[in-house]
């Protein structure tokens, strides 16, 4: 028997919707030089953030982002009851280390680049369930830590494929509160792992587009909504290739006139040489916690469906020739 708050196949609707009372984003220099530079809370001067290693820079960036989000409500880290965060590194060390410094009770998440939607979904469920009143949901990625873990040494002179994407150096954090004013999380759809049989590790957009459209379709069906209900349906990091595929799949699936875009396409300017677009947990996290929520606060956007997309592979499975499964979680954010 389905749960009382469950709607349709994969969606949950919140009885007392958690409110997004504050948010913050910190990005790297390249992201800051893009079209949304002024919408982020801070732009780092360089990728090392004054630290010894990129890994430390990444976790400091995440910690700083969470502190900024809490600070907007005059909270200290102690005031938060739970931190939900994840990143791309092995053993999600960036999140672990940030949680160590912040000393907030912590549940680490891994959903590859879908982590921001995953943390919002889990956070909203725990809050609507009545367990916590103040939750921080966050995600981050760093171009150079990801590059060295998943691809080549950073100074290696290799040619990147045109379908390849640029892992964003960015972090985003959202403060969810049981009471307060701001956009609220109305519903969330937990995605299935969908494998379209794609094997090219330098073409993640193709690997994830199937999962993204599956989750969008399921969400709209479960909620009995049409494609044009949302002011914006935005995927996390399908990039130019993946979002072009997604648009075709919308037609196939009968999703009518969605106002659709993709964070990976939006994050950078055309001239920034990022191949197919941005990617990484930070890509959707900083776009949500920067331009998108800002537009919601300003009333320009009233109904937003965020679908964060993740490619669930590792360098090992990629070398072993396994296909790349994709996942996508959807979060519906609306204004009262």
């Amino acid at each position, binding site marked *: 028997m389905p749960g009382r708050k469950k709607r349709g196949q994969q969606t949950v609707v919140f009885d007392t919707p958690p409110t997004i009372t504050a948010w913050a984003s910190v990005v790297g220099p390249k992201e800051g030089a893009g079209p949304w530079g002024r919408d982020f809370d801070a732009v780092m001067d360089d990728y090392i953030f004054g630290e010894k290693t990129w890994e430390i820079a990444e976790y400091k960036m995440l910690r700083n982002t969470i502190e900024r989000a809490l600070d907007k409500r005059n909270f200290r880290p102690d005031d938060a009851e739970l931190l939900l965060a994840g990143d791309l590194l092995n053993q999600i060390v960036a999140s672990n280390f940030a949680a160590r410094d912040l000393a907030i009770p912590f549940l680490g998440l891994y959903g590859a680049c879908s982590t921001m939607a995953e943390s919002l979904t889990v956070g909203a469920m725990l809050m609507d369930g009545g367990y916590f009143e103040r939750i921080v949901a966050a995600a981050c990625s760093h171009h150079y830590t990801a590059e060295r873990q998943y691809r080549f*040494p950073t*100074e*290696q*002179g*290799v040619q990147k494929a045109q379908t390849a994407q640029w892992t964003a150096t960015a972090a985003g954090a959202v403060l969810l509160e049981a009471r307060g004013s701001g956009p609220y999380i109305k519903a969330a759809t937990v995605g299935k792992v969908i494998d*379209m049989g794609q094997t090219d590790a330098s073409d993640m957009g*193709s690997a994830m587009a199937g999962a993204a459209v599956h989750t969008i379709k399921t969400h709209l069906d479960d909620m009995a909504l049409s494609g044009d209900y949302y002011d914006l349906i935005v995927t996390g990091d399908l990039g130019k290739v993946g979002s072009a595929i997604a648009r075709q799949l919308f037609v196939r699936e009968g999703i009518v006139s969605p106002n659709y875009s993709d964070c990976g396409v939006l994050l950078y300017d055309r001239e920034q040489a990022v191949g197919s677009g941005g990617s990484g947990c930070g890509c959707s996290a900083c776009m949500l916690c920067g331009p998108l929520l800002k537009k919601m606060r300003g009333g320009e956007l009233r109904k937003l469906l965020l679908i964060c997309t993740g490619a669930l592979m590792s360098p090992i499975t990629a070398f072993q020739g396994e296909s790349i499964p994709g996942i996508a979680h959807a979060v519906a954010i609306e204004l009262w």
Partner: protein
Amino acid sequence: MQSPEQKLIQIERQEYEDLASQFRPKPKLARNLLWAFVVGGLICTLGQWMVNLMVGRGVSLADASSAASCILIFLAALTTGLGYYNQLGQRAGAGSIVPITGFANAIVASALEFKREGYIFGVGARIFTVAGPTLVFGFVVAVLMGLIKVFLTS
């Protein structure tokens, strides 16, 4: 034998691949080839120029070749460290990978990358991460060639 379900998945994946392949930008073959030819050619010409210069001043051909290789390796290592070689590689592709400078780049890039994990488990253990296959298969081919030579000349 494939079960009907497996067949269905296969058909679905093939349809998806047909759709996806329409949206992948084609590699810019002509431009890439031209870049590779020009950059690769320039690197080799530079090496040859150094050899000619040294031979012209009375250095033996064998010594001049070794010296030219050393200088090219040094230049590649330097430009890798300064962060230029990867930018060249993004345009030139094989043009900057195939010459000896590409090999130097692969080793220095790995050494730089893993230095933060220390000299033993970082640099020492992983310096050949990228260049290793070249060495392994270089040795294998050398042994095979040696064997062929032994059989042909005996």
